[in-house]
């Protein structure tokens, strides 16, 4: 299955910790399990910003949406979620499900 994920957490002195997760390939119900594990891993660091690099993510099923919801519920309502360069069909999915206004779509992070 073509899916890969990696993450890092960096300390930003002024703004708190920033967790970045790079998603590549197709995010379906199976790969969403890996995504959720990665969220659980970075959640330990209590990041203030969660940055999801989606430039190379070509597909996202509802299981991926559920992990987005999970991340906010796990890390806390003050978490800011940034999506870097999501592809149009994924933006459409987020829009149809009303999740788009809970995240910030950016060209790059930090802006």
């Amino acid at each position: 299955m073509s899916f890969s994920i990696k993450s890092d957490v960096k300390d930003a002195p002024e703004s708190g910790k920033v967790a970045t997760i790079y998603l590549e390939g197709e995010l379906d119900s199976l790969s969403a399990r890996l995504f959720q594990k990665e969220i659980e891993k970075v959640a330990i660091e209590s990041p203030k910003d969660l940055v999801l690099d989606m430039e190379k993510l070509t597909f996202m099923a509802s299981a991926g949406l559920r992990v987005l919801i999970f991340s906010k519920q796990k890390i806390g309502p003050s978490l800011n979620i940034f999506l870097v360069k999501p592809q149009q069909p994924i933006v459409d999915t987020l829009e149809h499900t009303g999740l788009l206004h809970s995240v910030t779509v950016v060209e790059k992070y930090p802006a």
Partner: protein
Amino acid sequence: MNSKTFPGTVESIDLIRHYISEIAQSAGLDKKSSYNLKLAADEIATNIVLYGYEEPGLEGNIEVLDEQTEEALTVIFEDTSAPFDPLARELPDEEDLTKPLEERQIGGLGIFLTVKGVDDFSYERVGEKNRNIFKMLKGRVS
């Protein structure tokens, strides 16, 4: 009517998705419609595998049928798990969809995306089989 059979296991979900992409391409669907059909098929195949077969510990197949006319592409998934009508469940409504993430219920989004993404989605139980039917109109201006 073409037909291809996949074992009802998690490994098949990815394969079914790619098979659907091929069907969509050969039917000449545009990019957006192809993606939406692939998404709908993924959601339904996932439900069949995880809740129809895996959870109760059953073995079975998903048979993918497709038929094209000049106007439409119809894809049908047949499986032999317990009767399950995806449309019987209440879909998230406008109020649910505007709730902030932290208050969101986690279920129901897959079926919602399925119904929203295809031109027509229907379900029927015929004999021992569930039939999930996806219809995409061709030549839509998008």
